[in-house]
């Protein structure tokens, strides 16, 4: 098991290294420097600024400087928000993004699995159709359509909840969390349903029924592990995607999280900030992938014994 985790960590490290390298060069190759918009500044000022951000050095030195910074967890200064470092900006935005992401994942997993299991156990029942409808709607209607629609209904017309922002405590969380959870509820419930139906057809479930141990025990002890393994495999990357998916949510609901910072940084070519957030997102994704693999290995002895 330790070897298994070690191997996953090593792979994750490799991916992260590739991510660091690629991000750096993509940012350097992208057209338009961070200061090319301010054309009026004199050549001397331009040179001073470039020196301050080490943009005058050869690219390999810049890369070395960047990698060294990453290793010390210092992502350098932002080129747009003059008085802030990238670390400051991330630290200010991350709590909002994580809070929304966390609740969205919890709700998506609980509601999605419950709907999927109910649908699989009572196929073609009212619950099954409800879950199917939620599934179709959640997958087909994009976040950026349903988000504004809910805002228009619950905030502007009914005035129950704030339109956006972060100043109303839990009430400001309700709409962003629901909208972010919805497509995942849809996907998870479909996945759970299919996987549970497949598991119920497994020969080993038939063996368990033949043992006469009672339907509830068959369900709990013999079908849940098999049925939920694919869901767990999906949840890892999905959690990372939900946290990154909050880019849209933060735009729609005016939440000052890192997603909003990222879009602004990308539009303004604030390279250090873009790179910093990319690395953060990549790190989160890799971490969740490793966590998923470990959980699956705990549940499934066949994965554990691989290689």
């Amino acid at each position: 098991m330790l070897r298994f985790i070690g191997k996953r960590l090593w792979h994750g490290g490799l991916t992260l290294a590739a991510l660091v390298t690629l991000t750096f060069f993509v940012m350097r190759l992208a057209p338009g420097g961070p200061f090319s918009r301010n054309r009026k500044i004199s050549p001397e000022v331009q040179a001073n600024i470039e020196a301050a951000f080490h943009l005058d050095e050869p690219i390999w030195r810049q890369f070395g400087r960047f990698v060294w910074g990453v290793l010390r967890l210092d992502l350098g200064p932002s080129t747009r928000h003059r008085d802030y470092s990238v670390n400051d900006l991330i630290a200010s935005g991350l709590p909002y993004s994580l809070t929304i992401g966390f609740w969205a994942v919890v709700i998506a997993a609980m509601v999605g699995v419950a709907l999927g299991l109910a649908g699989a156990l009572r196929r073609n029942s009212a619950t099954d159709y409800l879950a199917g409808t939620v599934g179709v709607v959640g997958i087909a209607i994009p976040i950026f359509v349903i988000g504004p629609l809910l805002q228009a209904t619950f905030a502007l017309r009914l005035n129950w909840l704030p339109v956006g922002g972060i100043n109303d405590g839990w009430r400001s969380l309700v709409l962003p969390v629901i909208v972010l959870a919805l497509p995942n509820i849809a996907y998870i419930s479909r996945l759970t349903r299919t996987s549970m139906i497949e598991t119920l057809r497994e020969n080993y479930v038939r063996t368990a029924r033949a043992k006469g141990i009672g339907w509830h025990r068959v369900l709990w002890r013999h079908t849940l592990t098999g049925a939920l393994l694919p869901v767990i495999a999906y949840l890892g990357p999905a959690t990372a995607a939900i946290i990154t998916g909050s880019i849209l949510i933060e735009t729609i609901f005016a939440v000052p999280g890192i997603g909003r910072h990222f879009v602004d940084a990308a539009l303004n070519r604030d390279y250090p900030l873009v790179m910093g957030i990319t690395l953060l997102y990549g790190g989160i994704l890799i971490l969740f992938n490793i966590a998923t693999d470990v959980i699956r290995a705990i549940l499934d002895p066949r994965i554990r014994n691989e290689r």
Partner: protein
Amino acid sequence: MTDSLLSIRDLGVRFRLPQGETMAVDGVSLDVAPGEVLGIVGESGSGKSQILYAMMGLLAANGRASGQVLFQGQNLLALSPDRLDRVRGDALSMIFQDPMTSLNPYMRVGDQLAEGLIVHKGLSKAEARAEAVRMLDRVRIPDAAARARRFPHEFSGGMRQRVMIAMALLAKPRLLLADEPTTALDVTIQAQVLDLMAELARETGTAIILVTHDLGVVARLCDRVVVLYGGRVMEEAPAEVLFDAPAHPYTRGLLAAMPRLETVLTPRLGTIPGTPRSGGSAKGCPFVDRCEVRLAACTTDRPPLRDLTALGPGRRAACYLTGAAP
């Protein structure tokens, strides 16, 4: 028959399919005495496995059983799920065809065995585990105590089927249903596994219904044989007389298709021409299309299963010809 452990009366199994209803088992009646080994033979699709599934309440969702299955005085088909669960896995247990997929891959083998004892006999976890290890030892799993803590994928096919046998016999059932227990195994270990099953069953006085398409297996283990075709009983006889003097044309065809020592020199084994008819619900004898000796009546009227007392005790066949000519 008052001394019978199991008596099946007019069992039917139907499946609803998109293209209509199909009858997999049609009016089957048979009896099993305590300790007896009954073989059910037939080719694939003859409905032989479905008889077992119907008894265990394990038919597929689109299947429905009719008739009566009296086991120790209770009609299994009429029991509530709870009552049925008290019978299956305890007095009535089953071994399945494919040992590779019939064990739960996420659970330790010992726990899977112990589970039944905990539920049916009320043993504690530790007692049940100890009992499971003893049983694994009896089915000759080497180093049983350590093996019980392993997962199914760490066992070979033959070992898994022995685990299945251990699981089925652990509760000392009165009747064991075995659905082609060795077809998925290597030919070299088939006999070994079957002998083990029969030996352990004899020790506990457990009766067996052995479903197979392998007549060699039947000859080796069974006291009595029921030949099934198209979901209906074609012939029933004590094992030794069936091989010497088959009464039904279908049984004769089956025997001709079976390799034996004395036919090794003949270049070709016999085959039955044609393919099995589907459904089994049409009128007439289900075997009529492939039968070499059919009469005009065979296509219109279904031959009833009749006692052939003239041929010996316990013999029955469903054929106009055998009924007429002793």
